[in-house]
Structure formats: structure tokens, C-alpha cells
């Protein structure tokens, strides 16, 4: 057994420290001052420590630790290997920014008191850390459940609003459906040995059918957490309901624990994968990505839009995982490593830019009290800090070079270009076409983000009250800047990050990327003559050209500039309400992707005295899957409910009959 390395102890110490910080919040539950000036910054310090621990542990050998806690015959197994270390790094670096922002954001008088919120928030962080460290099914499930519960309470912070209670319930329900599937998955994985440590599962010899069952259960269970279509319905309800730092934490970090689970089960615990697992996951992921982005395009609530965009990004992550599985099953080490590295990179990127954007919406929400895109606009003039950092996030999530979103998409597209070498006939022809769906998704994401940014921050203010909006405070700025800086750095220095990722790909696949000729600034995944991307050179090129253009234009141009009201083709009655609305921006998408939606339209006729225009767009899965399921459950419950009459004598009779039946069986 390996030594309990320093990294593992440090990670555990951070988790315990978070618990302590959370408990400290209970001492002065109503004091915003203590919570925001002391406890949240302390939590952020823990995040930085955790990120450093993860970074150090990425290239270190795995460390294990057994603590005499938990069940009598199953002590607590912990393990820190490269995969855990990577996700710990993600958790630490993203939550550092979020906690700093949260220090300035949370205040008294909004639902749950700050001290209690502080407890829930830090228990959430600590349980995510333990999920990543767990090395037996029991520890995993306990931390998984405490993660779900603590985040449920965070979602329901403003529990006085009925819609938010409802959203929280939906979240709790789907979290538990997922948890049951994960529990069953562990049950299959132990393979008859009845040992529930991950080491025993790694050693278990599973026949193909059982392994496939375990894989399907893992995808179902973790997919419910990650918002894989059709298990995504909770996501656009719960994320907008939660306070913005919590939305950021859930979307940016918690969804990644589901990715961690899938990777842990499929690449580590299960025996060698079958090729169709990869194909199935790829198809699911691509469908999810397209579905998410199409729905994001028609949203009118800024946080719902971001939630749907999370479905899209997790879809891309799952597609990448599927691709890696497909290559791995075919014994193609290097392409599998490329696909997996792209997947992990995208996880990290999404953690940064999605947290950034959720935090930015939080600032907008605090400044304006408005989540509806139709009542925002022009905030770049009132909130420059939020607007310019959000611009970085917007460009990054739209997958534009030289920021980070582009790097992972580029790598994934490169991986797709290697799929014609997959040995399965048909697959080697069908899978490359998946690249076209990925390209479509990426391009649609740019559309969505232009809508998001344009409607909130640009143009004229759609409401008069927006003129009083204030920029965010100092701590909030710091959090936003941290995440924006991460987006830029991850975009500019991919080679460094990929070297760190080699630890993970080496551990899971036994293969790494070829770094020949990539240097410090380059990204050469396969071979220099095949493909290369050097973001720093790229950026220097653009900046050089830009500077030169500005200089020449300044030189040649006399520099006379005037401000005047917008011309708008001489139209005199121009006002803020004539700008394109969020609905207007969604219109082409509604038109082109009509079959995706269940739309209800209320259109005015020319003769209406009070014309009303309303279009509601709903998810088809509600009608097809969830409502029938809910009806079936209710019907079954009614039938079973007849057993309960409320009289004790009847219940005693039930016990008597049960005893009799048991006796008959035993004798």
C-alpha cells in the first residue's frame, strides 16, 4: 500500500477546514460582516491551497489513506491519484474566484441567513472534495449525497418563493434518481465479491454483459447529475433559482464531479471497454450539446440561458469522453489520449467561463433586480467592470481564439479527424460526421453568446431604472478578474496545461500526447505537419496588426471625432423599445429548429384593441417523458394507498400475515 502522501493529507485538511469555517458561520448567523470579511475569504484561501495541492499531486504517484471511520467492516478509504488531483485543481481554482466573489455578494435579508448559508456553502465544497477523494463505494455515496443535500439547501435559499421551492424539489428528485442508479452501478461492479472498496472493484472480473450494465447505470446516474438529455430538466430550473455564486459553483464545479464519476467508473473501475460504449456516449453527448444550445438560444431569462448552455458544454464533454472510449477500445492510445485531454481541458475551461458568467449575472441581478433579458440593456456604461470581464467569458465560451474555449474545441475537432482509422466498419464513417454536429454546436454557441452579451450589456437601456445600476464591489471585482485571468491564461498556455494532463491520460489510458515540437507556447497534439496551434504567436500577430492599424490610422487621419445621436437611417422616433429583444434574437432559431420545441403562440390580429404577443417555448421531454411518468407514479401510489386505512387493527393484521408468510417460507 502506498504511503499517505502529503497531498492527500493536505486535501483532507482543506476539506476539514471548510467544515470548520462553515460551522463557525453558525456562531454569528446574522452577521454579514463576519461571514463576508472573515469566513468567505478564509474559504477562498482553502480553495487556493486545494488548487495548489491538486497541481502538485497531478504528477505525483497515487497516495492512499484508510481512516477508521464509517461502517464496522468498511473503514473510510481515501485515495489521491492524477484523476482526482486534476478535479481537485479544478475545484480549487474555480471556487477560489467564486468564494471571493461570494464574500462581497451574500448579504442578510435574502432568504437564508448569511451564517447558515456559509455552513451550507462550505459543506458543499467539502463534500465535493470528499467525492473526489473517496476510494470506496460507501464513502463515495455518503459524500455524493451530502453534496446533493447541501446544494439542495443552497438552491432553496429564497425558500419563501414557491417556484424556487418547486425547482429545489425537482433537483432533489432527479439527484436521487441518479444516486440510486450510481448505487446499483456499484452493486454490479463489486462482481460477487461483496467488497465495496474501489480496489476490489478494479480487481473484479466482470463478464461483458455485467460490465455493460454497470456502464449503463453509471451513465444514467452521473448523467442525471451532469444534465445529460433527457435527464436535464432540473438544470434550467435549479440553476436560476440558486443565488448566483451557488449557480456558478453548481454549474462550474458540481457538474464536473459527474464527469469525474463517469471517468472513474469507465476508465478505472471497469475492465477494458467495449467499443459501442464509446459510440453510445458520443451520440448522447452530441445530442445533448445540440439540444442544449438550441434551447439556450430561445431563452429570455439570463440564468436559464446559461443553464442551457451548461447542458451544451457538458454534452461536448460527454462526446469527448465517448470519443476517448471509442479510441481506447480500439487500442489507439495516442488518439484516445488526445480526446481525453480535450475533454478534461473543456471541463477546466467550462469551470472558468461559466462561473465567470454566472457571477456576472449575479452582479447584474444585484444592481438591477432583474433576470429577464427583456428589461436589461446598455449596462456596459453603468457597470464597466462586470461588462468587460463578462466580455472575456463571452468570447471564451463562444469558442473564439485565442481564449480557452477555442483550445479544447480545437483539440476535440483534431481528435475527430483521427476517427477514420477506427477499425469498426460504419463507425469509422459515421463518427467523423459527429464533427459536423460539434461544429454546428460551437457556431450556435457563438450566436447564443452574442445574444446574451448584446441584450444585457449593449444597446440602450430598456428600462429607465437601469440608469441607477451600480457597478459591483471590490471583492466581487476581484473574483471576476481572477476567473477572467484564468480564461486568458488557459487560452494562451495550453502546452503547459497539457503536460500536466499527461499524468491523467497516462494513468487512465497508459498513453500520453506527443509533445514533439510544441515548446512552451505551442500546441502540437499529433505531429507538427499534421496540426499546430500557437496561441501566443497568434495573439502577438493580431496585437501587432491591431497596433499598427491604430497607429497608421492615427497618423493618416486628422482625428476629428464627434458624438451625435444614432443615425438609424434618419428615423426620428427611435427609442429603446425598438431594439431587438431576446425573443427577437431567438426567432431565427425557433424558425430553423422548429421540431425541437413545443411552442404556444399568441399572436395579435390587426383588429385587436389591446394586442398581446406571447410565445412560450417548452421542452418536449416534459410532455413525452416526465408528465406520463409522474401520472404513472401517482396512479400506482393511489392503488398502494388503499392499503393504508388508518386503523391500527388492520396494520396489525398486515404484520400477522407477513409473519405467517415468512414462517411458511422458512419452514
Amino acid at each position, binding site marked *: 500500500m502506498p504511503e499517505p502522501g502529503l497531498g492527500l493529507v493536505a486535501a483532507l485538511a482543506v476539506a476539514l477546514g471548510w467544515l470548520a469555517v462553515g460551522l463557525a458561520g453558525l456562531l454569528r448567523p446574522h452577521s454579514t460582516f463576519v461571514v463576508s470579511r472573515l469566513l468567505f475569504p478564509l474559504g477562498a484561501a482553502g480553495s487556493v491551497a486545494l488548487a495548489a495541492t491538486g497541481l502538485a499531486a497531478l504528477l505525483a504517484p497515487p497516495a492512499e489513506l484508510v481512516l477508521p471511520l464509517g461502517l464496522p467492516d468498511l473503514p473510510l478509504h481515501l485515495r489521491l491519484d492524477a484523476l482526482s488531483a486534476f478535479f481537485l485543481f479544478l475545484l480549487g481554482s474555480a471556487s477560489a474566484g467564486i468564494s471571493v466573489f461570494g464574500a462581497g455578494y451574500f448579504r442578510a435579508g435574502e432568504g437564508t441567513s448569511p451564517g447558515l448559508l456559509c455552513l451550507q456553502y462550505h459543506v458543499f465544497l467539502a463534500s465535493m472534495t470528499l467525492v473526489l477523494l473517496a476510494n470506496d463505494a460507501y464513502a463515495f455515496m455518503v459524500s455524493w449525497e451530502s453534496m446533493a443535500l447541501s446544494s439542495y439547501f443552497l438552491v432553496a435559499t429564497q425558500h419563501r418563493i414557491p417556484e424556487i421551492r418547486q425547482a429545489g424539489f425537482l433537483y432533489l428528485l432527479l439527484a436521487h434518481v441518479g444516486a440510486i442508479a450510481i448505487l446499483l452501478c456499484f452493486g454490479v461492479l463489486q462482481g460477487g465479491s461483496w467488497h465495496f472498496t474501489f480496489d476490489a472493484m478494479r480487481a473484479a472480473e466482470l463478464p461483458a454483459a455485467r460490465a455493460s450494465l454497470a456502464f449503463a447505470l453509471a451513465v444514467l446516474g452521473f448523467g442525471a447529475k451532469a444534465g445529460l438529455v433527457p435527464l436535464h430538466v432540473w438544470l434550467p430550473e435549479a440553476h436560476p433559482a440558486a443565488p448566483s455564486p451557488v449557480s456558478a459553483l453548481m454549474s462550474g464545479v458540481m457538474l464536473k464531479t459527474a464527469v469525474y464519476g463517469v471517468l472513474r467508473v469507465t476508465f478505472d473501475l471497469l475492465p477494458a471497454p467495449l467499443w459501442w460504449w464509446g459510440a453510445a456516449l458520443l451520440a448522447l453527448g452530441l445530442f445533448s450539446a445540440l439540444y442544449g444550445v438550441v434551447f439556450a438560444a430561445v431563452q429570455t431569462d439570463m440564468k436559464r440561458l446559461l443553464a442551457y448552455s451548461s447542458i451544451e458544454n457538458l454534452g461536448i464533454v460527454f462526446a469527448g469522453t465517448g470519443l476517448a472510449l471509442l479510441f481506447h477500445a480500439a487500442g489507439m492510445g495516442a488518439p484516445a489520449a488526445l480526446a481525453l485531454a480535450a475533454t478534461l481541458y473543456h471541463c477546466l475551461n467550462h469551470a472558468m467561463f461559466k462561473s465567470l458568467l454566472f457571477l456576472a449575472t449575479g452582479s447584474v441581478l444585484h444592481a438591477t433586480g432583474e433576470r429577464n433579458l427583456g428589461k436589461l440593456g446598455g449596462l456596459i456604461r453603468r457597470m464597466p467592470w462586470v461588462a468587460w470581464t463578462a466580455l472575456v467569458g463571452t468570447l471564451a465560451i463562444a469558442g473564439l481564439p485565442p481564449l480557452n474555449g477555442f483550445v479544447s474545441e480545437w483539440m476535440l475537432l483534431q481528435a475527430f479527424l483521427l476517427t477514420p482509422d477506427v477499425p469498426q466498419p460504419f463507425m469509422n464513417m459515421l463518427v*467523423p460526421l459527429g464533427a459536423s454536429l460539434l461544429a454546428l454546436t460551437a457556431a450556435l454557441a457563438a450566436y447564443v453568446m452574442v445574444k446574451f452579451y*448584446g441584450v444585457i450589456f449593449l444597446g440602450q437601456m430598456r428600462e429607465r431604472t437601469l440608469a441607477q445600476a451600480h457597478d459591483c464591489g471590490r471583492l466581487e471585482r476581484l473574483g471576476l478578474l481572477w476567473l477572467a485571468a484564468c480564461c486568458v491564461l488557459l487560452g494562451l498556455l495550453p502546452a503547459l496545461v497539457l503536460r500536466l494532463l499527461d499524468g491523467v491520460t497516462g494513468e487512465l489510458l497508459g498513453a500520453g500526447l506527443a509533445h514533439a515540437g510544441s515548446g512552451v507556447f505551442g500546441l502540437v497534439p499529433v505531429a507538427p505537419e499534421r496540426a499546430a496551434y500557437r496561441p501566443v504567436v497568434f495573439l502577438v500577430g493580431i496585437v501587432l496588426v491591431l497596433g499598427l492599424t491604430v497607429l497608421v490610422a492615427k497618423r493618416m487621419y486628422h482625428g476629428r471625432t464627434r458624438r451625435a445621436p444614432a443615425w438609424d437611417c434618419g428615423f426620428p422616433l427611435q427609442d429603446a423599445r425598438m431594439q431587438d429583444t431576446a425573443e427577437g434574437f431567438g426567432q431565427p432559431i425557433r424558425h430553423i429548429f422548429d421540431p425541437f420545441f413545443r411552442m404556444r403562440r399568441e399572436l395579435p390580429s390587426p383588429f385587436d384593441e389591446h394586442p398581446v404577443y406571447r410565445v412560450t417555448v417548452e421542452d418536449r421531454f416534459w410532455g413525452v417523458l416526465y408528465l406520463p411518468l409522474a401520472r404513472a407514479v401517482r396512479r400506482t401510489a393511489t392503488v398502494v394507498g388503499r392499503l393504508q386505512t388508518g386503523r391500527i387493527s388492520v396494520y396489525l393484521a398486515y404484520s400477522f400475515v407477513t409473519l405467517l408468510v415468512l414462517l411458511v417460507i422458512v419452514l
Partner: protein
Amino acid sequence: MTAVALFTQLFAVTVAVVLAPLFLGWVNMCRAWLQNRAAPPLTQPYRMIRKLLRKDAVIATDASQLFVFAPYVLFGSMVTAAAIIPALAVDLPFARAADAIALVGLFATARVFIALAAIDTGTAFGTLGARREMMLGFLAEPALLMVFFTASLIAGSTELPVLADVHQYRSLAIHPGLAFAAIAFLMVLLAENARIPVDNPATHLELTMIHEAMVLEYSARHLALIEWASALKLFNYACIGFALFVPWGVARDLDSPRVLALALAVLCAKLAVAGAVLALIETLNAKIRIFRAPEFLAMAFMLAVLGLLVRLLLQS
């Protein structure tokens, strides 16, 4: 990186920046001839740019810094793109920084910035144009990417110089996949450069505008940069087409200045033919309704995917 390569790089970029308005002038000239009109002089786009540079810039009161900054980003991206595309020579030092996918990303960056700038003024026509431009973009971008994919699968690389080089020297086989890709590329070119049948570059009717509607609020040096960038974009697209489908004549070994001069001559000849063909297409077609434009581009996308499929079928 040798001095020769660096010189070639600078020369290629300069040629692109200088020649681009001329190419636009040539297309307009051919179109005027085909429509039995007296043609404007070949230098008309240069005069336009000079005229705009002399004027006072007017900026909308509501516009933010983004509005002022966007034309520079647009122009800068197009010049950077010209530095990547192997129009004259395959051995370009800067081309190693970015491949075909990054090129598509670069075009997307330019589009996103100009769309955001159009929204920034908060006018009805600006936001309308931005929405339409993004709608065309999200269909045209994957189609362009799929065209590159088809060529990349043949060459085994996404590096543009390698693509041009492979198609020029190594593989003389006939690739039916590339034929589909070529048609798709032509359609994308028309849509992305705001040409008929998707958009009309000469329109004065605001309701039918796409690209023009976005830049209505620009004036003087900003507008000059935008016009120049549009010309460069057309030039770049033409050069991408040459690199993928008719790469012959691009200089490979730069041992004497004559090679470069020859490559320049060949490029001019190709541009002359391409401009005439473009003018012919624009004359023969009518502008389609805006609601039909997605169908046009979806067709381009499907053709590009079909090209990819054909390539994969024939390979196995």
C-alpha cells in the same frame, strides 16, 4: 525562421492588403459590364477609402468603447487571416501559429465583434443586422469547417500550407468528395461576403440588408476600415478557395525572387478569372428572401457533410 521566409510573409500580407480593394473593384467592373452599365474605374474602392479617411468621424452618443474598437479588430483579424492563407507561397512562418480550424475561429471572432458593435448603438437596424449576420454565421461556419475537414482527411493535416502543398504536388488523384466541398465552399463564400443571392452589397433598402445594416452607424475612418476589411475578407476567401481546389502556381521553394513574381502573376490571373465568375453568378441570380437564406446555407452544410461522407466511403 529565415530572413527569406520573413520577407515572403511580409510581402504576402502587403500584397493581400493592397490588392484586396482592387479585386473588389474588378468584381464590380465585371458586374457592370455584364449588366450593360458603364463600369466604375478599377480604383473606385481605393477612392472610397480615401474619401472616408478625410471625413469627420461621428459616433453615436450611446455607443461604448466596444463600438470604436470593433473595426480595428475586424481589420486586424482579416490581415492576420491573410498571413495564414498560402496565397503566394507555402512556407509562411506565421502559418505555423494557426491552422484551418483556427482560421475559421478567426473569422468567427471578427463576426462576433462586428455583431456586438452593431448591437451597441441600440438602433433597430443595427440589432436586426446583427441577428441576421449571426444567423448566417452559425450555418456558414460549420459548412466551412466541413469543407476544410474533407480536404484535411485527404491531406492528413489541417495546416493550410500542407493542404495547398499536398493538392498541388503529391496527390493528383481525382477526389469526388472535393467536388462537393467546392460547391459548398462557393455557397459559403457568397453568404459570408454578403454577395447575391444571400445579401446585396449594393442595396440601399434597409429592410433587406444584412451586412450593411450592421455598419449603418459607422462613418469616416471606422467605415473605411470596415470597407477595407470586407474587401480583404473576399480576397481571403478567394485565396482559401485557390489553396484548396486550384493550388497550382503557389511558390514552394523560394530560391529566387523570380519564383515569387511568378506566383504573384499566377495569383492575379486566378483572381481575374474568379472575379469574373463571381460577377457572373451575381448577375445570373436574384437575391433570395431572408427566410430562404437558412435553406441556402443548410444546403451548403449538407453538401459539405456529403463531401466528407463521400471521401470516407471511397477511402475504405
